[in-house]
């Protein structure tokens, strides 16, 4: 594994291009790697041409059998990558992913391994509504036997996809639609991978820890820049992997800052922010200097309408304001019931079911 900082040759490319490069390199590296999905051979025509129709397969429009076939193939020595298009379509593939890929290694007493990668896109930005835009990654974090990644930076799209393909466990790879066409520096080396389970500290600071993944990493970075001008030093952690979580990176930061805000687009209820807040409330309790705040999407499907879609995503202003609140927090001065969670304060709507 090449550490990030040691990479000399970088190319500027989008997250989508970075994913494609990852696929190409892993196809080249390991003949057992294959790709299946609705339209993958159409979309990635160059892979089809360069690596044979046996390894790059358009499938019938049938997610359950795509995922089931990947499970069977993975247990039999192949390393399938399946593109399930949009994350909500994974609801058709849940038996294969949750009951088969996640459980049959264990239930068989370790007889099988399931080195497969399931890719799904999601997140706001395309006005496609809740049957395409649903950040349901936490469901797979909750299920045993699976790993889950969701990168923010193009380099991580590449490095995590390569790591996922090489992993001997089933890995869910979620791509935030809003990031796919964003460009960034991406290492060109074949051996570049980003290890699953390691977060990246994107910005160092002592006053408050902002934890995010995917689209909201940038929201936190922008908030941190604003806060800096006000003399508040925010530490920004990009989780990258949601399972396993890099618990140490988060806890170490919280032990330093004493303040934790977790930001994601997915619903707060039983989401990643809940998990991290809970971990901090156990393992960094004595260091906490203020309540923990979650800024998340609402308990609502994603609306197509641009205005509502955007209102569901935590904003820079909400993160900045929550940070200020925590820095100013004094057990007596601020009633804790004023800290609403989960929220997206800029939207003003708090009518959650909680």
């Amino acid at each position, binding site marked *: 594994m090449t550490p990030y900082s040691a990479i000399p040759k970088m190319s500027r490319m989008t997250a989508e291009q970075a994913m494609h490069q990852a696929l190409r390199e892993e196809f080249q590296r390991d003949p057992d790697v294959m790709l299946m999905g*609705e*339209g993958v051979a*159409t*979309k990635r025509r160059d892979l089809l041409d360069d690596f044979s129709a046996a390894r790059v397969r*358009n*499938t*019938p*429009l*049938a*997610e*359950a*059998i795509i995922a089931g076939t990947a499970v069977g193939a993975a247990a039999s020595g192949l390393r399938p990558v399946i593109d399930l298009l949009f994350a*909500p*379509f994974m*609801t*058709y593939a849940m038996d294969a992913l949750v009951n088969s890929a996640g459980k049959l290694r264990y239930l068989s007493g370790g007889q099988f391994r399931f080195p497969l990668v399931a890719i799904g896109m999601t997140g706001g930005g*395309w*006005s*496609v*509504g809740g*049957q*395409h835009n649903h950040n349901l990654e936490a469901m797979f974090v909750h299920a045993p036997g699976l790993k889950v990644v969701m990168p923010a930076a193009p380099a991580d799209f590449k490095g995590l996809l390569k790591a996922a393909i090489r992993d001997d466990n089933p890995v869910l790879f979620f791509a935030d639609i809003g990031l796919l066409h964003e460009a960034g520096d991406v290492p060109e080396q074949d051996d570049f991978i980003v290890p699953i389970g390691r977060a990246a500290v994107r910005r160092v600071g002592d006053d408050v820890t902002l934890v995010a993944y995917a689209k909201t990493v940038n929201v936190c970075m922008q908030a941190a820049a604003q806060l800096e001008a006000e003399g508040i030093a925010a530490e920004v952690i990009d989780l990258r992997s949601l399972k396993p979580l890099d618990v140490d990176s988060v806890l170490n930061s919280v032990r330093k800052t004493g303040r934790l805000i977790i930001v994601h687009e997915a619903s707060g209820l039983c989401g990643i922010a809940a998990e991290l807040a809970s971990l901090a409330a156990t393992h960094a309790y004595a260091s906490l200097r203020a309540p923990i705040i979650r800024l998340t999407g*609402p*308990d*609502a*499907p994603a*609306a*197509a*309408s*641009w*205005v*509502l879609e955007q*209102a*569901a995503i935590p904003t820079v202003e909400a993160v900045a304001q929550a940070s200020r609140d925590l820095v100013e927090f004094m057990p007596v001065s601020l009633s804790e019931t004023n800290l609403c969670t989960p929220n*997206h304060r*800029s*939207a*003003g*709507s708090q*009518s*959650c*079911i909680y």
Partner: protein
Amino acid sequence: MQAQPNTDAALRRLETMQLIRAYELALVELQRAGAPGTCTSVGQEACAVGVIEALDARDRIVSNHRSAGHLIARGAEPRRLMAEVLGRVDGYCGGRSGSLHISAQELGVVLTSTIVGGELSMAPGVALAQKMGKGDPGGIVAVFFGDGAACEGIFHEALNLAVLWQLPLLFVCENNQWQAFVHRLETMAEAAIADWARGHGLMVETVDGNDVDAVQDAAARAVAQIRASGGPAFLELSTYRQRGHFEPDDQTYVDPTELRGWLRRDPIRLYSERLRARGLIDSAGLTALQLRIDASITAALAYAQTSAWPSPETLTEYVYA
């Protein structure tokens, strides 16, 4: 031998198909100007118009992502559809749906899903409710789905249940040869869909989906059979998706010869020629019709574009009843 529609009916068929086409093409333009993309039904207008004409007001329709034709044929206002596509409050779903899952309960167009197969999963339940006396007496349900949806397991489950429970359900498979960016011959055997359906032992008919009269005729027969027997029937409409899957789409993956062949069989062109040959319309009439439709679409667009955005305050409204 199919019956010839009377003049009014024939002209209405032509007009509705043209309205759908004009609506879809307006959305294409809109997308080019930055509006959300849509799955247009260009080339499939005869399916929507033919089937929906065979239904009554008491019947219900369940649809999918490519629903504009079904909605307009059923009487939906283009201006409210456009408002929905643009995410505005005057849309049929207040802008929450966008183009992909528009329902219009007031028209009996219920439970649209953009999950391919979702329409098939819900339609038997709507038909069961009709059968158990919940809808208007004697009402049946028509579910529109694609050749791609026929590959999903739910296709099999829905057919089995509908046959087993004898549900008043018309399966309408618009086989437009494409499943997003994959040709259906890459996903199934040549003649698959009707064969699969036949294995379930219900009435199955395969029809030229680009001939609106043929579609209407077959649909009317199927509907009559459903009303008479109480049980389901199946139509496979052979047609073609003339434009891309979702706007924009450069269609570089499409075989141009195949596309050209189907363009020659464009349903509106075929029908205009037929009506001209029958002397029901002439060039001047066609031009006048087109102008009328264009004007109505222009007005609809203006309405939609000036419709208000939903308030962010309403973000979590309608999550729970």
